[in-house]
């Protein structure tokens, strides 16, 4: 993730420590993948209560941009910054393979460099990526345009309505299970994930210019 952010922005991302209780001035907070606290409890459940999550909540409440990928997405749902939950994959096994994602809308900072309906490839690598929410919540987030990405073709982990990523109601917090950051260099097999990072950087540069 740091490599993808560095390559897109030309700047070194600031690393934050989980016990910090303040944030510096930032354009974007990214919660990357991993196994926070080993995920021995529910994935992301411990990290959602880390001291740093207080200022992250405040940042989001002030309209700040937050991206969570994989474990980062799990943490954002555990912290209730995003709707729904990530359950064990339907096949009960860890899945590491490429999947295809369909972009639901392109009028957000996360998806502006795609067209709605575009399909791109992204590696997925998770054991708990089965998106779940009750039917009312699913209806609501679909109705309000909070679905960011859906699995196109095979829905590997059994996610409800093939949802792979969601937005917050203000479209400024985004979480998804697959890893666009691992496909931003032709050497690693493609640049399918690059529009996410290029789009973010462009919107921040434009925002700063205004």
């Amino acid at each position, binding site marked *: 993730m740091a490599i993808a952010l560095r390559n897109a922005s030309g700047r070194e991302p600031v690393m934050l420590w989980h016990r910090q209780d303040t944030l510096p001035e930032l354009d974007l907070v990214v919660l990357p993948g991993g196994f926070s606290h080993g995920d021995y409890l529910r994935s992301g459940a411990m990290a959602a209560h880390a001291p740093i999550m207080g200022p992250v909540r405040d940042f989001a409440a002030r309209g700040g941009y937050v991206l969570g990928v994989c474990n980062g997405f799990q943490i954002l749902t555990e912290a209730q910054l995003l709707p729904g939950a990530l359950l064990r994959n339907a096949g009960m096994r*860890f899945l*590491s393979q490429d999947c295809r994602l369909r972009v639901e809308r392109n009028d957000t900072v996360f998806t502006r460099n795609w067209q709605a309906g575009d399909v791109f490839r992204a590696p997925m*690598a998770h054991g708990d990526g089965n998106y779940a929410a009750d039917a009312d919540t699913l209806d609501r987030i679909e109705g309000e345009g909070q679905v960011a990405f859906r699995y196109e073709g095979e829905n590997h982990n059994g996610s409800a309505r093939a949802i792979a990523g969601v937005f917050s109601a203000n479209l400024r917090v985004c979480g998804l299970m697959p890893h666009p950051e691992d496909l931003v260099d032709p050497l690693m097999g493609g640049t399918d994930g690059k529009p996410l990072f290029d789009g973010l950087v462009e919107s921040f540069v434009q925002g700063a210019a205004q």
Partner: protein
Amino acid sequence: MSTQHRTVDQALAREFGLTADEYGTLLTIMGRTPSFTELGIFSVMWSEHCSYKSSRVWLKTLPTTAPWVIHGPGENAGVVDIGQGLAAIFKMESHNHPSFIEPYQGAATGVGGILRDVFTMGARPVANLNALRFGSPENPNTRRIVDGVVRGVGGYGNCVGVPTVGGEINFHSSYDGNPLVNAMTVGVARQDRIFLSAAAGVGNPVVYVGSKTGRDGIHGATMASAEFDEDAQAKRPTVQVGDPFVEKLLIEACLELMATDAIVAIQDMGAAGLTSSSVEMAGKGGVGIDLDLDSVPQRERGMTAYEMMLSESQERMLIVIRPDRTEQARAIFDKWELDFAVIGHLTDTGRIVVRHQGRVEADIPLAPLADEAPLYRRPTAPRPALAPLGPVHDPVGIEQALVTLIGCPDVASRAWVWNQYDSTVGGLTVRRPGAADAAVVKVENTELGLALTTDCTPRYVAADARLGGAQAVVEAWRNLTAVGARPLAITDNLNFGNPEKPDVMGQFADAITGMGEACRALDFPVVSGNVSLYNETRAPDGSTVSILPTPAIGGLGVLENAAQAIGIGLRPDQFLVLLGKTEGALGQSLWLREIHGREEGAPPPLDLAAERRNGDFVRAEILGGSVSACHDLSDGGLLVGIAEMAMAGGVGIRLDVPQSGISPHAYWFGEDQGRYLLCVPDPDGVIERARRAGIEARLLGETGGDGLTLPSGATISLARLRTAHHAFFPALMDR
């Protein structure tokens, strides 16, 4: 085994795995009857696992040097120069016995242990691989063991955030009661920041970091030094339990400490835990060590000195530190929420002295503990001459044989396994599992690529250990070559049966001889390794079954520019060229086993000079840009290799008539060595350059379409091949 303090005598020593002679040597060294704890320390240090007492005389014959070797065997892992001031640090190690008893934890802690061997030297781990051998798919136990081992490898590797990029899997009934789990880790360090294990500086503090010590894994090293009997399951309490998140913290904390000048020496607590780490560090440094066990972070109450010295609790390291840096080091481990305790100091006595609750529990001179460790040149029996394989007919035809072979357990797609390992975490994986003959990872902040592979063909080793040992090394070298990498060095993981049996010891000696010959011919030295003996199962009727001898080779190569690495996938509208000599060798071939049910004959012969010539040619062609895909030929021979390239590229091929003078099934499925398939836009140029280099080269056909068209005109669609190729694992595991 009771951990109560019992009277120490020869009978107890025997229970601890020491022979009468070994116990006699111990008494001479000590000049008195040892304490219970001392007996425990001797028994683990002199176990096969820690002392290499049966294998050392043979291991010494292996070549271990080259201009690019920085540290060969003897450190925690091997270190080679990869250029730009950087070093690759790597090793492979077995966790066979624990993985049979408790597959998940056995495999998981195998991954954890080998990671520590690598980062203890200052390297950030960048890739994991694993070489796995399981019992027959028909054995009802196999499914459970495959499931647990694969989950364990993934569970640990995925959580620590190191991509698992490659490996190999075989199935054979000889592994029914004794699967093999060989885990390999590769790391990268700056050459001027490599950390060694020899302790130095009398008075320097000895620091314990990582997890707390519990009663798990006591006498694991001794267990790994005896054959299995029907009570194997009762040994479950000797299996360790892993915590990959603590390992992740330990990696980060150690690397942070390593960026300072605090560390004098460091070693992980692996087999035989605190005993082997303290004894080896002090012994290598020629100093003494005093340990105060009251200071050891403990997970359980009431642990004895014996239990603490022999515990194999995971995720622990021992560090000799500069006294003026102790508080700086403590602050780093506090930050990462890991235990940090000064548990002793170095002395000038040349002895290890262990104190616990005011009593001296052990006081042993270190030099004789190492120098007078048992060393055996065990008897070897020559292998019986192989009956020649007579003519074999083709009962099924080429088409059916291909479909059978492409779906057989040793060739079928491993995607079901790989898909449970995170192969892309870190964003530096250039060639993922199955995409190329070797995995390729980019070295961060450079253009360099590391090529990585594990290889062994156990059925060849069983038939002819010298040839099979050499073939394992050559196969690794070929796989690195086939992506365009310059092969640098290997790590070996030698899995054999009971060395006290002359036929097994003969296999071991012959395999090492063959490995050494190949290493020398290819300038491909051994820089680290591990020996796992006593891989046999005792049945209730008293008979024993040895595993197929399995000297697994982990190979590492380097590419100046990772972007030059190529894969195996065919490109459309190009040409496929076969390089190397085809004679149709069917002895010990997969075709013979899968079609005729026979494991017979001599394995295909090796010509080491031809291997070198052919491989160097292929590498030069790849780096010269004339090759779009390359695959070396191994299991299943030519047609299986072509089918694998076609499936990987999603591109078919129309094949020309086979070479005359060889029956078609021998031509398509013989396993002649030293051969590569090259997909090229300009076949005439490549063939002409090969001819000038004295290498046989032959145009096989033009690529395109969506099937394999045989010279007979019959076409096997890629879809049919894929269906056959992908059926095996899901059918075995997801039922």
